[in-house]
């Protein structure tokens, strides 16, 4: 999960459906403020045969052919399914390999979790969410024409236990081996390890069964992550697999030069009739790395012939924004809220006075912090811990403070004191500007702030150390699926705090909150959403561990010949499964 909060450009991870595997949510929770309204994601797990059957619904006016170019600042961290935990990485690899389940989207918000490799989203065998069974479709083949089997899926799960491949999500692993380090006993299939972890069985080539010690009704969602992508043992090149995954999807890797370019071409053995998610219109994709954000935006604004079939996942930088709001360029903007909430963490180990933490909430100018990184295009001011896209979301404001802050109330709470605090920030241009805006408002309102710049690549390592020497630092968090269960426990359960690598960046450690987390977890799935929201408000009102600053939004461009470019509700970035080149 930590990787999700690394940088602004990484964006939101994964899922955005309803609370559990068993409910449907359609409640809206807008934030207004002139930006596109953030909504609780709508959709459900669908067992309807029509939803689960391929081929994917055709896009009106779309034809096969052409190459889509994706312009990027940086290369992907990983393509290996075991190490795949970044939203745009997941979108990209969704073209190369398939998981047991996946999200069917069309840009209208009618998003469904359906079977991808599996015929349906999985069977809760005993009705207690402890045993889940998935049956693979007929006719699934790899790029070399060999059949995809359930043993390959099991091998994919097994290798995600290997310490060398540990960057991916760990839901299924931890559910299989709860109560501590998931790979303390099973370290993957390498070096003489068992071919599959305990609790993963493949009674035949079409069936894979997961048996968990505890109930996990979220399994259909967890199965949508790349952890369940098939990796045939014979094609497993261990850490090398990162550079050349073996295709079970509509495209295969044609060439990959790290940090330079990745080219995908058609996998002739992919059968569209077996795939309800992907239309695979383009003949290929080319990902170009190493470009500056401004360069990317300028190229897409200019829309020169070579860039007309290009798009980006990189937000338009503030300097270029003004030229994207009118005329034909505006028609090529894809924007909307994501699942991220950015908060200014208050290190509660160092800032122990509750009144000072409250004063900080009154003192921060959220508007200025947003303007520093693009204003409304970058997000809307926040007041809660969870994003409005979370199931069960209910807007509240613990302090009733305007987005620009309330200087008088801050000063009243301080009572003439001038707390000296260290504000740490990543050393990127945008984050530095944003920190400066925050520093300015805090300084004007009675605080004495010392800025500390941290190298962006080690920012979260630094602030994730329990005994870090900083009082305030920004952090963003997006859920893996939009329930409080993937937000509140990882961020506010004090029992999870370790010497380093922490996700609980406010280091709030309260036994009452931990107990409440345990209580909510044990509730029936349908009751959890509202309870997570109550806990969100309780934490903010009673403990004030953070200053909610903004709900994140994305604002990106595409070329004039890119068709069906829409923001994925599941991933918070342009979806590529049904994109096409306008002929």
């Amino acid at each position, binding site marked *: 999960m*930590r*990787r999700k909060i690394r940088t602004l450009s990484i964006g939101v991870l994964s899922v955005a459906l309803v609370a559990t595997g068993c409910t449907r949510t359609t409640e809206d929770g807008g934030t207004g403020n002139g930006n596109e309204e953030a909504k609780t994601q709508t959709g459900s797990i669908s067992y309807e045969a029509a939803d689960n059957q391929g081929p994917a619904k055709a896009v009106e006016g779309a034809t096969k052919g052409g190459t889509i170019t994706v312009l990027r600042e940086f290369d992907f961290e990983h393509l290996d399914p075991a*190490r795949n935990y970044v939203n745009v990485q997941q979108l990209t690899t969704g073209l190369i390999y398939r998981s047991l389940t996946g999200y069917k989207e069309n840009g209208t918000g009618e998003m469904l979790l359906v079977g991808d490799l599996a015929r349906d989203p999985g069977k809760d065998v005993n009705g207690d969410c402890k045993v889940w069974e998935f049956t693979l479709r007929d006719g699934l083949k790899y790029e070399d024409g060999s059949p995809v089997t359930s043993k390959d899926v099991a091998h994919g799960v097994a290798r995600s236990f290997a*310490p*060398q491949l*540990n*960057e991916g999500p*760990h839901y299924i692993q931890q559910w299989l081996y709860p109560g501590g380090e998931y790979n303390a006993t099973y370290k993957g299939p*390498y*070096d003489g390890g068992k071919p599959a972890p305990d609790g993963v069985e493949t009674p035949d080539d079409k069936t894979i069964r997961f048996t968990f010690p505890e109930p996990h009704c979220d399994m259909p969602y967890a199965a949508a992550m790349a952890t369940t992508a098939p990796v045939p043992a014979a094609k497993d090149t*261990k*850490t*090398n697999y*990162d*550079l050349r995954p073996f295709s079970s999807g509509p495209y295969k890797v044609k060439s990959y*030069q*790290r*940090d*330079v*370019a990745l080219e995908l071409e058609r996998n002739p053995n992919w059968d569209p009739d077996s795939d309800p998610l992907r239309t695979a219109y383009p003949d290929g994709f080319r990902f*170009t*790395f*190493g*470009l*500056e954000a401004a*360069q990317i935006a*300028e*190229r897409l*604004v*200019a829309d*020169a*012939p*070579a*860039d007309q079939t290009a798009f980006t996942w990189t937000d338009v930088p503030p300097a270029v924004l003004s030229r994207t709001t009118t005329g034909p360029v505006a028609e090529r903007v894809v924007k909307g809220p994501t699942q991220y909430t950015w908060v200014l963490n208050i290190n509660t180990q160092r800032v122990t006075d509750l009144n000072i933490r409250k004063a900080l909430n009154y003192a921060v100018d959220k508007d200025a912090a947003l303007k520093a990184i693009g204003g409304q295009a970058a997000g809307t001011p926040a007041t809660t811990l969870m994003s409005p896209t979370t199931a069960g979301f209910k807007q509240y404001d613990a302090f009733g403070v305007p987005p620009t802050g309330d200087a008088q109330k801050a000063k009243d709470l301080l009572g003439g004191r001038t707390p000296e605090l260290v504000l740490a920030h990543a050393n990127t241009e945008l984050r530095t500007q944003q920190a400066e805006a925050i520093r300015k408002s805090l300084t004007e309102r009675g605080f004495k702030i010392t800025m500390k710049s941290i190298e962006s*690549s*080690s920012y979260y390592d630094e602030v994730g150390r329990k005994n870090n020497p900083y009082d305030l630092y920004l952090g963003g968090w997006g859920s893996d699926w939009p329930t409080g269960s993937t937000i509140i426990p990882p961020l506010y359960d004090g029992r999870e705090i370790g010497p380093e*690598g922490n996700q609980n960046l406010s280091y709030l450690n309260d036994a009452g909150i931990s107990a409440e987390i345990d209580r909510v977890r044990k509730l029936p799935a349908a009751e959890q959403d509202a309870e997570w929201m109550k806990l969100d408000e309780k934490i903010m009102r009673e403990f004030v561990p953070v200053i909610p600053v903004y709900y994140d939004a994305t604002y990106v461009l595409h070329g004039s010949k890119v068709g069906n470019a829409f923001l994925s509700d599941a991933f918070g970035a342009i979806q590529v499964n049904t994109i096409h080149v306008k002929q």
Partner: protein
Amino acid sequence: MLRFIVRRLLVAVVTLIVISLVTFGLFFAVPSSPAKVMCGKNCTAEDIAQVEERLGIRDPLPEQYTNFVSGIFVGRTFGSGDFERECPAPCLGYSFRNDQPVTEIVTQRAPVTFSIVFGAAAIWILLGVTLGMISALRRGTVFDRLAIGVSLAGASMQVYFFGLILLYLLVYATGLLPFPTYTPLTENPAKWALGLLLPWMTLGFLNSALYARLSRAQMLETLSEDFVRTARAKGLPLRRVHTRHALRAAITPIVTIAGLDIGTALGGTFITETIFGLQGLGKATVEAVQYLNLPVVMATVLLAAIFIVIANIVVDVLYAVIDPRVRLS
């Protein structure tokens, strides 16, 4: 002449050994552990130790240096078991981030940098020297004043300013040129040239300004020398006096500077590559620094030094060819 070259080569080898030692020292001087960076999240001490093993940074320093140097000549193996990697000679290290030998990375990136630098150098030397010579021969004319004015403007600008202006005017605003891209010369020469035209124009204009001014000054100085006057007095055709006598003498310091400029440019094209989004050695170096991909950093730093050393040797040799007195000294 052979003795001269051998002497220069020996000095170059010693220089490179010193540079390799310093670069190797830098590898260990950085504050972050490359193993920790590479290990990813949830890394235990045991995991980090494994990565260190794979990186080969647990052996004593002298042994590591010896392995590094011997790897250049005979190749070496990194890691063990399932994670063993072969690095054939000339092995400059193994990048586990890229999962390939550093030599391969360098080989992939170097053609981009070479194309930018040599293409631009051809423009700046040809344009600069020609303009400078003509200006000197037409001293005081409108052409001379114009050339001096333009070259003054060129010499005052930086690539990150002029490059962006050209990019905006020729690519973003008018679409006259495509956004620079690199296509291998062997694959499509026309596309190669078109894709690199903008960086060539930028670097070519900026550097030619300097060369025009230098060439003009050198030529003017040479034209006033006694031997030129003698040549003229002997009744030699002016063209021959200018090309055979004056130009040969004037060009000597220009060759020196050109050699060093090219050597420096080969090792330091990061700004140009960044502005034009080209993935050459400079960009590779900065990316490697960002990701603490230290084997790549070490190799590119070493390469930059090698370029300068080679440029020095070439300059020395050319100097000796042009001016025989150098050989005697």
